[in-house]
């Protein structure tokens, strides 16, 4: 029982990082109908920025600054590389985002070097005792940060002028235009959000273990998360991220005892297995809009 709960908390911690990344994907998708494959580079860029800034400003301020920095970079990239492509097939734009991902990652890798960079977080791998459970502090920090950010985001989309404008543009661009919403601003905002969220997620990925040139692969786990939750649902992104995190953690804890024939490290592929299963049953995700297409 104790091991199960600990495993669950680890899963929720990791899952909230996936959720933040997935939110970025979904926000960009809703605004522009493009899946932005640039998220991994923003994630790793944020973590590396924190690793440099934390030595000067301390961890927390560094995280905020890095999020703003990456958001600004994402904004710039959207303006330069994506905006001129408005009206082109989404497939083309998606491929461009792949290219952006490679470019940004090469640049960031120059800053990483060959070693593992520490992000200078105050948690490391230290444990905290809660009701008899030994839990790593960083899982709790991830959960808390994700809860805070998700709350802020939902409040933003519900109550603010630009949040509403973004929702309106996601539902019907022409209508939003007719109300005086600048759709360009909506695109830019969505990329900035995705960049900022990815940067914070990256920082949390780096807690405890640091980041190296291969850490970006973790961002790909947000893809199963958005497929599970539904591509166009913010709530689905959060749920999908948490589900993927928890399933991965449980498999990691129990697979070696229950199903040793699957071999070692099977946990790494479980997000994709979950994605395949969900795709078989509900191709539009748990919370996504069901697409009706007449053939």
């Amino acid at each position, binding site marked *: 029982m104790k091991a199960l709960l600990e495993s669950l908390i680890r899963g929720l911690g990791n899952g909230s990082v996936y959720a933040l990344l997935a939110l970025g994907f979904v926000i960009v998708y809703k605004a522009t109908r493009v899946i932005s494959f640039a998220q991994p580079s923003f994630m790793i860029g944020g973590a590396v920025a924190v690793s440099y800034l934390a030595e000067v400003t301390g961890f927390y301020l560094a995280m905020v600054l890095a999020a703003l920095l990456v958001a600004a970079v994402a904004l710039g990239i959207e303006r330069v590389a994506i905006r001129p492509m408005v009206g082109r097939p989404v497939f083309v734009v998606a491929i461009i985002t792949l290219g952006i991902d490679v470019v940004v990652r090469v640049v960031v890798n120059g800053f990483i070097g060959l070693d593992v960079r520490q992000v200078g977080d105050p948690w490391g791998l230290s444990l905290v005792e809660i009701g008899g459970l030994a839990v790593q502090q960083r899982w709790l920090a991830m959960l808390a940060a994700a809860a805070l950010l998700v709350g802020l985001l939902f409040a933003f989309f519900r109550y603010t002028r630009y949040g509403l404008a973004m929702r309106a543009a996601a*539902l019907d661009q022409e209508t939003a*235009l007719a*109300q*005086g919403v600048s759709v360009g601003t909506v695109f830019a905002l969505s990329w900035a959000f995705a960049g900022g969220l990815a940067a914070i997620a990256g920082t949390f990925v780096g807690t405890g273990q640091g980041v190296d040139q291969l850490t970006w692969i973790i961002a790909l786990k947000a893809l199963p998360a958005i497929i599970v939750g539904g591509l166009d649902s913010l709530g689905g992104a959060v749920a999908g991220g948490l589900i993927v995190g928890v399933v991965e953690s449980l498999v990691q804890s129990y697979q070696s005892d229950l199903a040793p024939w699957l071999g070692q490290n099977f946990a790494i592929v479980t997000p994709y297995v979950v994605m395949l299963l969900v795709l078989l049953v509900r191709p539009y995700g748990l919370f996504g809009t069901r697409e009706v297409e007449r053939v």
Partner: protein
Amino acid sequence: MLEVRNLEVVYDDVMLVLRGVSLRVPAGSIVALLGANGAGKTTLLRAISGLLGVHDGEVTKGSVTVDGEPVHHLRPAQIVRRGVSQVMEGRRILGELTVEENLRVGAHTAPRDLAANLDRVYGLFPLLKERRKGIAGYLSGGEQQMLAVGRALMAGPRFLLLDEPSLGLAPALVGQIRDLVVEINAQGTTVLLVEQNATMALSIAAHGYVMETGKVVMDKPAADLLSDEDIREFYLGLGAEGAARSFRAVKHYRRRKRWLS
């Protein structure tokens, strides 16, 4: 004064949809724009409100001016800020948002007047106030049309472009919409009303324009249009009631050969 001068609009670089349309909407009036399907009415509205870009259209000649200032090269958001709002055909409400959120989206360019405009719209449409927390997609057709008009009013426009507000509504509701248009106009908003329902449009408009295949073919005070023979026959369905028409008298057109299409 909203003025369109000699406007030409081309879609997809090849389709000439408006060929030199001119039109004047004096401040404070209701002007009706009639025409059959495909005459270019909606295109004209899009050209005024800047929404041509979405449909790959562009103004190739002529101008649209609001109080003397050209607006046809501006983006939709800037045109809304100049005081021109369009209510698009087919209502186009944001179905997943609540009624009040729809209205707040409409207030995007005028956040400071949000409360005042909200009061005004709820005053005009008490029904919307009752259902303001409800999901907009669940409203009935007439309520959705009212929401669409209310949303446009949230920007506090001086010129309101209404594209077929009576489309698909029961006759009783059409009367209600007509009264609302009159009331909105009385509150100081100039209205350009595009309609297929010519009886309704001409009964409240001061002036009427009739478009056919991208041109204004008739331009008269509404009362004159109502008594015009052709308008009575083609738009009001009142021509020579009961009298058998000889099809010999109907004009014949020989189809031109089109080598290019």
